[in-house]
C-alpha cells in the first residue's frame, strides 16, 4: 500500500514541480472569473419583462455552457497529463531505477492512475463547484442532478486516463496522443450524427452514434450529464447540450466497465513487457 502511495505522491509532486498544477489553477481561476463576470452582467441587465421560466432557461443554458467548457478541459487535461507517463518513462529509462526497487509493476501503474484520477477529480470539483456557486449566488438558481453531472464528467476523465495508460504500455507518447484524440473526435462527430439523426428520425444515424459511443464512451457521458442537468423541457430545444437521443444508464455502466477493462489490460501488459 505504501508503495502505491509513494507513486501517487510522486505523480502529484511531479505535476506540481513541473508547474502543471499552477498553470491549471491560474487558468481555472481566470475561467471562473470570466464566467462569474459574464453571468453577473447578464443577470443584472435582464429585462424585467422576461418571465421566470425564460430566466431559468437562460440561467441553465449559461450554466451548461460553463459545464461544456469544463467537460472539454477535463478531456484535454486527462489526455495531456497522462499520455507521456508510461511511454515517456520507458523511453527515457527513468522507469528502470523505479521498477528494480522492491515495488511491483502493478503498484506503479495503480499509483499513477490514482494520482491522476485524484488530481483531475480535484480540478473538476473546483471548476464545477465554482460555476455552481456563481450561478447559485448571483441568480439563486440550482440545476437538477448537479452532483451526478460532476461525477459523470469525472468518469469521462477516468475512461480516458485508463485508456491512455493502456496505450502508453504499447505506443509512443505521440501515437498514444493521436489515438486518444482521434477516438475522441470520432465519438464527438458520432454524437452529433446521432443527435441530428434523432431529430430527423433516422435510425441508421442514431446507430452510428451508438457505435462510436461504444468505441469511445466519453462524449456519451457528457451528453448524459447534460441531459440530467437540464429541466426536461429544455432537452427538446436543439442546443449543443440538448439530448434528443440521451444515452441511457446502460451506457454509464458500459463506460465503467470500459475503464476497468482498459486499466486491467494496462496492468497485464505493463506486467509483461520488457523495460
Amino acid at each position: 500500500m505504501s508503495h502505491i502511495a509513494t507513486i501517487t505522491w510522486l505523480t502529484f509532486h511531479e505535476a506540481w514541480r513541473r508547474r502543471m498544477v499552477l498553470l491549471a489553477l491560474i487558468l481555472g481561476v481566470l475561467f471562473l472569473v470570466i464566467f462569474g463576470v459574464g453571468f453577473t452582467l447578464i443577470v443584472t441587465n435582464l429585462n424585467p419583462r422576461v418571465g421566470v421560466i425564460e430566466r431559468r432557461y437562460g440561467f441553465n443554458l449559461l450554466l451548461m455552457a460553463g459545464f461544456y467548457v469544463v467537460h472539454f478541459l477535463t478531456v484535454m487535461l486527462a489526455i495531456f497529463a497522462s499520455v507521456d507517463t508510461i511511454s515517456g518513462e520507458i523511453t527515457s529509462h527513468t522507469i528502470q531505477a523505479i521498477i528494480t526497487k522492491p515495488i511491483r509493476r502493478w503498484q506503479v501503474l495503480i499509483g499513477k492512475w490514482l494520482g491522476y484520477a485524484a488530481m483531475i477529480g480535484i480540478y473538476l470539483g473546483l471548476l464545477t463547484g465554482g460555476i455552481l456557486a456563481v450561478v447559485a449566488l448571483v441568480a439563486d438558481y440550482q440545476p437538477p442532478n448537479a452532483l451526478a453531472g460532476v461525477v459523470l464528467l469525472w468518469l469521462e476523465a477516468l475512461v480516458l486516463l485508463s485508456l491512455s495508460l493502456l496505450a502508453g504500455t504499447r505506443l509512443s507518447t505521440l501515437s498514444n496522443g493521436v489515438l486518444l484524440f482521434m477516438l475522441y473526435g470520432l465519438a464527438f462527430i458520432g454524437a452529433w450524427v446521432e443527435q441530428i439523426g434523432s431529430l430527423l428520425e433516422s435510425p441508421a444515424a442514431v446507430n452510428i452514434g451508438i457505435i462510436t459511443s461504444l468505441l469511445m464512451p466519453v462524449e456519451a457521458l457528457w451528453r448524459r450529464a447534460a441531459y440530467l442537468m437540464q429541466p426536461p423541457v429544455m432537452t427538446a430545444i436543439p442546443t449543443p447540450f440538448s439530448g434528443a437521443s440521451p444515452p441511457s444508464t446502460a451506457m454509464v455502466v458500459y463506460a465503467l466497465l470500459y475503464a476497468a477493462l482498459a486499466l486491467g489490460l494496462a496492468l497485464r501488459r505493463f506486467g509483461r513487457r520488457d523495460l
Partner: protein
Amino acid sequence: MPQSAVCMTDLVIDTRALRKVYGRKTAVADLTLQVPRGEVFGFLGPNGAGKSTSVKMLLGLVIPSSGSARVLGAEPGAAAVMARIGFLPEHFRFHEWMRAGELLDLHGRLYGMPSDARRRRISDVLELVGLTEHTRRPLTDFSKGMLQRIGLAQALLNDPELVFLDEPTSALDPFGRILVRSLLHDLKSRGTTVFLNSHLLGEVEATCDRVAFIKEGRVLQTIVLRDLHAGKLRVELRVDAMTPALHSALSALPATELLTAEPESGLLQLMVADEELLPEIAATVLASGARLYALTPQRLTLEQIFLDVIGREDSGQ
C-alpha cells in the same frame, strides 16, 4: 559439473541457458553463469554482445524467452529480493525535476526504508559519491558525470548485498573513475557481491575477481584474474629456421604451451607459466640447433585476453 556443485551453497547469481529473442534477433543466446557471494564479477564483451540485456534479465526488467535464473535465491525481479539489490542502469536517467536529496529520498522510500534511516543513509551515500554540497540542487543542473554519481548513490542507498553496475564510469572523469574503483574495493571488503558490466578493461582488471567474456549472447570463457597476475607470460621468439626438432623440444617443455608458429618468418609464440622458465627456453632453442634472434616476454593484460577470446574482427564495432 563438480565446480558448481561446490559453490551451490551460496550462489548469488545462478543462471542456466538464459535466452532472449526479440523477433528474429537473438540478444542473448545462452547465458549460463554462477556468481558466488562476495565476488566482484566482471562481464565483458563488445557492444551488442548482450551484456545489458543479460543484466536486465537478472533484474526482472526483461523477461527471458527461455532458460532459468535465480538471483539471491529467488526469481529475478521478485519484490522481496529487490530490497537487497542495488542497480545503476546503463542509461542513468532519473526524474530530473527533482533535487538530488529528493531523488534519493524517493528511492529510499521505494526500498521501504524508514524516514530516519533514509535521512542518515542519504547523507552517507552523498558523501560517498562526493555530492554532499549538491543535495539541494535540482538534477536538471547536473552534468552527466554528476548524474552518474547520483545514480551510484541511489544504487548503494539500501546497503545492498548485490550491486549491478552497468557501465558505471561511462560519463565519469578520471577523478570519478578513481572514486568508483575505491568504492568497488570498499564494497568488496564488506562482502558485497558486485556484477560489473564494463568495457573499460583497465578498470575491470583493477577491480574484478573474475571476468566472463560474452559474445553474441554466449559466455565464451571465464577467467580468474588472480591467475592472470600470478606470473603467466606470453613469450615471442624469432629463430632462423623452424625445424621439427625445435618444435618437439619446445612442446616437451614443462608448463609451456606453444601458441603459434609461423615457419616463413620464424616467429613463435609461447605461453609460459613462470618467468623462471625463460633461460630454459633459450637453452632449448639453442640446443635444437636453431639460431635465436629474439626472445621477448610480455605480461598478459586483460586487453590481450579480451582480443584473443572475442576475436580481433570485432574491434571495429
